Structure formats: C-alpha cells, structure tokens
C-alpha cells in the first residue's frame, strides 16, 4: 500500500512536484507518465524515502516515512521497498548473485542463498549467477536488477524508467517480469516512464505535467 498526501517538493525554492492525494492499494499497479522534468523521479524518490519531501506525507504499508529516523528509514526501505532504475544499477565489482546477496546484507537480513537462487530463477537468469554485470547484456542486467529488487520480498516496487535504454524485445520482457512478479507476490508496483510501450500494459496511471502537477 502506498499513500501520498499533500506531497510537494521544492528544489532551491522552485516547486517541482505537487500532489494532493494519490493512493495505491496493496498489490495494485500504476504508471506515472509525463515529459522529462515533470517530477517523476522526484516522486519515486519521495515514495522510497530516498528524499525527504518539502511538505506532505508518504505512507508505505501503514508506516509514515516522515516519522522514521534516518537509519530506520534506510532499513525500512531495504526490507519493504524494491527499487529499479534505468541503468547503472548493478555493482560492477560483484557477480549477479553477489548483487542480490548485497541487497540482503544491506537490508540487515540474514544471507539466504536459496532466496537469491529463487529470485534469479524468477527472472530466468539462474545460470548467470556467477556472471559479472559487464558480462551480461543490458536486458539481462535489468533483469538481475529486478531480481535484486525482489529478493527481499518487498511490499512496494518502484521502477524509474526501467525500459528506457532497452530495445523492444527486452523492454517487453522486463515489463512482463515486473508486472508478473509484482502480481504473484502481491506487491504494489509503481513505474515512472515516458515510454509509450509501457502505457499499453498498465491501466491505472498518474499523469504529471511539466510543472509536476497531475494533468
């Protein structure tokens, strides 16, 4: 469950995002659409607690993020929120499996190699567990990143332009994975994109205009 209330954010006194209210029920999937600079990424960062809002409240699974001290917020994010980015998301020094193990470690969860294998299998890359990111194609890298976002069993998955740097076939596969995995785990899914290929797949959608307001 994700609830945003009176959420707004300013950069240097300049408002880039203003939202009265936006709620996603547990397991619900939605898109944030809008041109570049419309505040999509800012909204996701606020929802993930990576950024503290200038005003308003973010509630994830009943927990108000604003009420958490910094270290607790980090931990909460590690355990309950899965993040997927456009690119540069895997640590190049670590293998695919180690990237997933890192997510467990960083979230303060015990090492669980079975969960790592399951997550890699879920994205069809169990045979690439020992591969380093530079040995993988972009589509494979993005799938490992999805597996990493899934490995701790998050309640909320946030994806920022996950298909933007992929060709059609890979974009389709990545999107299929995100939608199917979120659904099978009953995780809430929010994807920010200005990619028209995505908008056909998910019905619910929040459109932002260039000033960061719902269109």
């Amino acid at each position, binding site marked *: 469950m994700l609830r945003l209330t009176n959420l707004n954010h300013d950069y240097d006194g300049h408002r880039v995002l203003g939202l009265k209210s936006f709620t996603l029920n547990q397991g619900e999937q939605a898109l944030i659409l809008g041109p570049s600079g419309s505040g999509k*990424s*800012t909204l996701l*960062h606020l929802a*993930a607690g*990576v*950024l503290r809002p200038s005003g308003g409240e973010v509630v994830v699974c009943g927990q108000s993020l604003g009420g958490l001290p*910094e*270290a607790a917020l*980090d*931990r909460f*994010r*590690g*355990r309950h929120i899965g*993040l997927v*980015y*456009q*690119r*540069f*998301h895997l*640590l*190049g*020094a*670590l293998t695919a499996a*180690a990237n997933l*193990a*890192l*997510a*467990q*470690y*960083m*979230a*303060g969860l015990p*090492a669980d190699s079975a969960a790592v294998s399951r997550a890699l299998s879920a994205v069809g890359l169990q045979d690439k567990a020992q591969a380093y990111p530079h040995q993988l194609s972009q589509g494979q890298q993005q799938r490992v990143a999805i597996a*990493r976002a899934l490995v701790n069993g998050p309640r909320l998955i946030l994806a920022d332009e996950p298909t933007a740097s992929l060709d059609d076939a890979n974009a389709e596969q990545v999107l299929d994975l995100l939608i199917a995995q979120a659904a099978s785990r009953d995780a809430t899914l929010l994807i920010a994109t200005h990619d028209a290929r995505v908008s056909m797949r998910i019905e619910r959608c929040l459109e932002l205009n260039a000033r960061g307001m719902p269109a």
Partner: protein
Amino acid sequence: MNLFSLSLAYLRTQRLTAALNVLLLALGVASITVLLLLSDQLQGNLERDADGFDLVVGAKGSPVQLILSSVYHVDIPTGNIDLEAARSWARHRLVSEAIPLALGDGFRGFRIVGTEHGYPESYGAVVAEGRLWQASLEAVLGARVAQQTGLAPGDSFVGAHGLAPGGHGHDDNPYKVVGILEPTDTVLDRLILTDVRSVWQLHGTDHAHHDEAAHAEHGDHASHDDHEHHDGHAEHAEHEAGHEAQDDHERHDDHAEHDEHGHHEAHQAHDQEHHEDSPVGHGHEDHAPGAELPSILAPEFDPAGRQITALLLKSESLTAGTTLPRLINSASNLQAAAPVTEVTRLLRLIGFGLDTLRAFAGMVILAAALSVFVALYNALQARRFDLAVMRSLGASRGLLLRHILLEGQVLALAGVLLGLLLGHLVTEGIGLWLSNAQLLRLTGWTWLPAEGYLVLLGAGVGLAAALLPAVGAYRTDIARTLARS
C-alpha cells in the same frame, strides 16, 4: 556478503592500484622493520660481546680500534704491548680478573686468538665436543668456525699469518683441533682459541727478540737445551719419548714450546719448584677436563721480552671503569679503553645514520598514505553511484563510512604485514650475507615489541588515508546521485 568481502571485491577491481599501494606501504614498513631489527641486534651483539669486560688494555692508538680489534675482533690491533707492563696492571687491586689476548694469525678468515681458559669462560662457553686446549698448538673452535670449516677434533690445520685470509702459512706448525664450543651467540663463535704460547711459537718476529733474551738470561738451564732445539717436525715423537724422563710440568712446557728455541722452557723449568709440590698432577694422564697451562700472568712466569696484543680486565669496583683508564693512560705507555664507553660512542654514531634512514622510511610510508588516500578518493568519485545504490538497498550512512574505512584498513594492514614479512626476510638475508663478512650476527627470525607499534602505525595510516573519502561516502546524497544518472 559482508563489508569485508565487499571491500575485497572493490579492491579486486582496482587490483593494480591496490597492489601498488600495498607495495609502497610495504616498502616503507619493511625499511623500518629492517632498521629496528638491525639496531636492536647490533646493540645486543655489541653489548653481549663486551659483557663482563670492564677495560681493555692495549697499545696506544685509537680506543675504538682497540675495542674493535680486541673485543669484537673486526679491526686490526693497535699494536703489541710488553707482557711485563701489562701484567703489572693485571695485578692491580681494582682488577678482579685479567685475560691476555695474543692476535696475529687467522685461518680462512677466522681469527686465531691466543688466550687463556678464562676467555671462553667469560662468555659462559660450554665445550660441545672434545675439550679445551691444554698445550701449545692445540686449538678450540668456535661453533661457527667448526660449522664453516668442517674441522673436527683430531683434525689439523695450518694458521695463516696475518688476520686477513690468504697470508702465508705456518706450514711447519699445524694446529691440532682438540675441541669445539657450543654456540654462544657471541663473537666467540667465530674465533679459534688457543694458548698464548701457540701464537708466540708461530710468531716469527717474537722469536728473534725472544731468543736473544732467552739465551742471555737463561743460558744456564742447559738441561733443557736438547728440547729447545728440537726441530718442529720431529717434535711430537721425540717429545713423547722425552716425557718419561721429565717431570709432568716440563712436559707441558715442551708441548707449549715445541718449536720455540728458547728461553721459555728454560724459564718454566726455573719455576718448577713452585709447582712441584702442588698436589694437582700435571701429567697428560691426570689432566682434569679443562686443565690449563700455567697462566702467563702468574708471577712465576717470566715475561721478559714477551709481548701480547691486549689484556681484558674485569673489575668488581664500580669506579674502575673511570679510575683505572686514567691511571693506565697516564702511568704507562699503554692505552686503556672501556668497552661500554666506546660502544656507546659507536652506537651514537650509528644512531645518526639509522635516524636518517628511518626518516626516509617514514617518508615512504607518508607517500604510501597519500597514495592510498588518492586511490580511495578517486575510487569514491567512481563509486558514488554504487554507494547511492547501497543506500537505496538499505545501507545506512554509517555502514558506508565503515565500508570505506575498512577498505583503507585492508590496504594498510596488507601493506604492513607484507612489509613486516619483507623486513624480516631482508634482515635474514643481510644476516646470511654478513655471516661471511663476520661482522654482525643478524637474524630475521626474531620479533620485537616495536613491531606491534608498526601494525598500529599502519592502521593509523589506513585510517588517515580513508577518513576523508569515508566521510564523503557518509555524506552521499542518494537522490541527487541517482537522479544524475
């Protein structure tokens, strides 16, 4: 997955840089380790070799040279001194023990030292094999001499004239090895010990001088002349034969003097009365282990014309170290030097050199610290995104701080450990190399408490180098960093 394996994974991606940093630090630490081991063992060696000897009396010249030649056996002696003059000091009331040294010959670079049993005893030496010398031309080998020459009791060797290897040999008068000493870890290990009379016997210049005096003064002791003029080659056989006819005491002297044309046996015979009623038998058969020829410092021994190289003095008196040298230096044409004083002077000189080297090593460590800092700082720039991703995966700021600090520590500790290992290996190497030069007994297989401080120093270097980058990691702005991609 943990912070350590994560840091290692990152160091692996920067293998070359990491290896260079570790090496640089290791070089600095190794230099300091070598210097530590060197100065500690040098000091230990110098002090152990001089231990117990309060004063060295020798010919006038440089006091350092006197100490180096007579205590450490590295320099050439300052000259010879008359036994008569030296002996008067041996009997001084402040002197508790005196040991004569006669130098001049060597064997394969090892010095042959004419002395008395008190010398090895001063070092607490224990006979490993055979016995101590009981006659002239009997030799006892230090542990290293035995090991390097392969000589064993029963073997013979010919001393070379002069202290440097390769002098002309005393072919006519080979030494007979009668014993080998246990290692003492002192200068004794690389000495060949014999009686002073062996050196006199082989020492050409001494003979001439000697004989004149001998004939002039002791010509009346004709009964021994047959022996005195024995040819060295035939000596042993004839000598044995002659034994029965002579008293025990003379036999000794004959042994001691086989090749000497001289006054000496005559003189000893002269003193016979003094010894004759002694309950201790002096026959070969009766020799207690370690029984020794009569001391040349004893009043019965005629010192006329005899020379020795130096006299080692021990004293029970605390003031002897200052009073006696002044007395000796002013009252005679002898020189007295206190090993403690000269060693301190030497160590101070060496200390300046070591301090300079230490400063250089310190600079290498500083350079290593800077290099580690630059490497981590650059890595931080390249890793900002990774750090932000870690934060988004749940890492706290503190964890990132520790992650970078740990990386600095891993580098620093690897450098220190490698440096310590390297330092000990190099020291051992120098020790092996010097063992041929016989200057300094040095081993790498010993650890000093100060090396613990080196580990701490390394940890400090790692901490200092990683602190700024770690704070940078701590302050990573996740949203901004992620948005920038």
